[in-house]
């Protein structure tokens, strides 16, 4: 066997050679960044629909043309893997300069110290454009960890022909859960279901819509938060379950599929209605067969029309070298025309009133935009957004438990117990 000194020597020399090759690849410029120095920012965008990608790239191109000293490079990320990717990027010190994510996902990163406090960098204009309630979803202890951009709500899409045929009314300010249930029942006949609901990842839907019934799910914030699961929290899963298994008006198979997996069934007339995030509208537009008529029904209402405001966000890493410039780009991104463009691409609701007005004007409220923008009025911060271990609870506890419940494997009491007890396990 080799003696220890030799090993040490070999290891040391290996380190030196490798360090030498490594430094050659170091792309990022060093030194502090004055405002006149030319910098390049990496902007990791999660836009995934063609329209949104195009809109985002246009914003970047416009910015680059106007700011020769602060060039932004568009980098494509993906919603599916953003959390894992950010963990490794932060840990490896390779996080991009501008990061897109969503409010509920970044709480942990903010607490771990990875995100820069933007409160002193963002312009007053940006700060005034967004309502205080939405700023709350990205702030903690007076620090602002992100700029909120777009909001999503869950809406009901209907097959116009089938709704007409069955005489289902689709006007009004809101659609109560009771009416949804009654409509779905009416539309269910002959192997066809009133409702298809892609709930493969049920947690976000249940927690967001849970606000309809004032479901809070958590009390407190950070690591001290406690789970709070009562009747209000369980109302949404209970109703979905009874539609699927008592009324048999929701296709149970659809509950195990993703949102886009149920679209062929919607197009084919197998489902008269589907529930999904409003971004599904873009996919319907792109993929529906010619002549397929669809509409967005009024916002769902329980005791209220409230849904959780879980905005998409733009953040800057605390270790970033160009925080100031990154914030300037974010300010630009938040301008009404820009937010309106990405919002239209994804059929999501801009966080600023000015941008919402632009969309209302440009679309004339058609294709369900009136209903979509209306649903945005009722979005408020939900407790789960400020809970650090929410992502872990969502993956390991809530999603499996809800899936089991929606597959009719456990009853409502067991679901409540799992959601509650599971929190103690993941938050230890």
């Amino acid at each position: 066997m080799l003696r220890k000194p030799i090993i040490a020597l070999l290891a040391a020399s290996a380190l030196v050679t490798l360090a030498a090759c490594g430094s050659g690849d170091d792309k990022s410029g060093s030194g502090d960044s004055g405002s006149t120095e030319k910098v390049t920012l990496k902007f990791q965008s999660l836009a995934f629909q063609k329209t949104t990608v195009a809109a985002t790239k246009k914003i970047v191109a416009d910015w680059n043309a106007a700011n020769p000293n602060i060039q932004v490079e568009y980098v494509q990320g993906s919603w599916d893997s953003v959390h894992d990717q950010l963990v490794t990027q932060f840990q490896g010190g390779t996080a991009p300069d501008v990061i897109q994510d969503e409010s509920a996902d970044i709480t942990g990163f903010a607490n771990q110290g990875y995100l820069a406090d933007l409160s002193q960098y963002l312009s007053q204009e940006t700060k005034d454009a967004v309502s205080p309630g939405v700023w709350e979803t990205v702030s903690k202890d007076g620090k602002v960890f992100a700029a909120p951009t777009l909001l999503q709500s869950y809406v009901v899409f209907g097959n116009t022909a089938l709704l007409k045929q069955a005489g289902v009314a689709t006007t009004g300010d809101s659609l109560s859960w009771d009416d949804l249930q009654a409509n779905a029942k009416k539309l269910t006949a002959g192997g066809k279901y009133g409702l298809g609901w892609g709930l493969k990842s049920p947690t976000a839907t249940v927690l967001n819509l849970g606000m309809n019934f004032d479901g809070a799910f958590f009390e407190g914030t950070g690591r001290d938060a406690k789970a709070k699961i009562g009747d209000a929290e369980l109302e949404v899963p209970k109703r979905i379950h009874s539609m699927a298994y008592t009324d048999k008006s929701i296709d149970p198979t659809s509950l195990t599929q993703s949102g886009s997996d149920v679209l062929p069934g919607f197009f084919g007339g197998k489902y008269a209605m589907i529930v999904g995030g409003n971004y599904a509208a873009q996919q319907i537009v792109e993929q529906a067969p010619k002549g397929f008529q669809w509409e967005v029904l009024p916002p769902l209402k329980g005791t209220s029309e409230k849904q959780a405001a879980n905005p998409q966000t733009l953040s800057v890493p605390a270790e970033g070298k160009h925080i100031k410039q990154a914030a300037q780009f974010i300010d630009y991104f938040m301008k009404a025309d820009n937010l309106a463009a990405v919002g239209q691409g994804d059929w999501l609701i801009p966080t600023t009133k000015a941008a919402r007005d632009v969309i209302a004007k440009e679309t004339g409220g058609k294709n369900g935009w009136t209903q979509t923008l209306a649903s945005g009025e009722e979005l408020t911060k939900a407790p789960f957004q400020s809970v650090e271990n929410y992502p872990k609870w969502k993956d390991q506890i809530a999603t499996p438990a809800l899936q089991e419940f929606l597959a009719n494997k456990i009853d409502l009491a067991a679901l409540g117990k799992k959601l509650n007890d599971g929190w103690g396990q993941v938050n230890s």
Partner: protein
Amino acid sequence: MRTRPAARAAQYVAVICYLIFLGFPLLWLISSSLKSPQEFASITPSILPKHPNLSNFTDALEEQGLVRSMWNSLQISVASTVLVLVVSLPVAYALARFRSRLRPLTNGWILVSQVFPVILIVIPLFMILRPLHLTNTIPGVVIVYMVWSMPFALWMLQGYVAAVPRELEEAASVDGASRLRTIVSIVMPLLRPGLIATAMFTFISAWNEFFFALVLLQDPELKTLPLVLARFVGAEGQVQFGPLAAASVLATVPSLVFFAFLQRRLTSGLLSGAVKG
């Protein structure tokens, strides 16, 4: 051996069942890659595409990042294959020819590297590569792949070296040739088939590798083909089956071609490694 006709028929039926099980999935993938989006939207799928066309392939190739990821995968696979051969050949030679004390150590390491779950290695690896500025770089992945595919390369190569008759080398050294010369002019030419087989295997395993790349490469511009494909399928609500199938077919082509070359050698190569290992 004589076999009764009934038994013989049963054997053919069994083979056909096996082949359907093993071959049909690929057939379906290829057929899917030739279908139009409308055909995917229809509720009743058909085995053969109704209007076969290559638009999925052009779509896939236009897809941002796919071509670049193929290029990344190619670079990484070629570089790590060359490195593995350069580094492993001397070791394989030493393992086959010398009764060194390093031999049991090496064999132990080969075994250990198979047993240990990669999760244990990847976290420290990440921590080692970070100060060297090798995380999130192609050279970083190349050297990781080199080390990671060495056990298998050694396993195969030492079998091939052992198959080269020792007498040839001894004859050369009697003629006064240095050992290095002997290796280069006598052993290497005889090893060529073995080297080619090992190279192909290493290439395929680098081309197909997923886990290390997943952890070590975060920059979308650096991602390898499997990473991009996995993202393609994973994106919630946005699975476009046609281009996905087309991209998958493209990703399989290099491995399939190499395997077609290799398949004769496969049995002998593996077995020689196994017997001598």
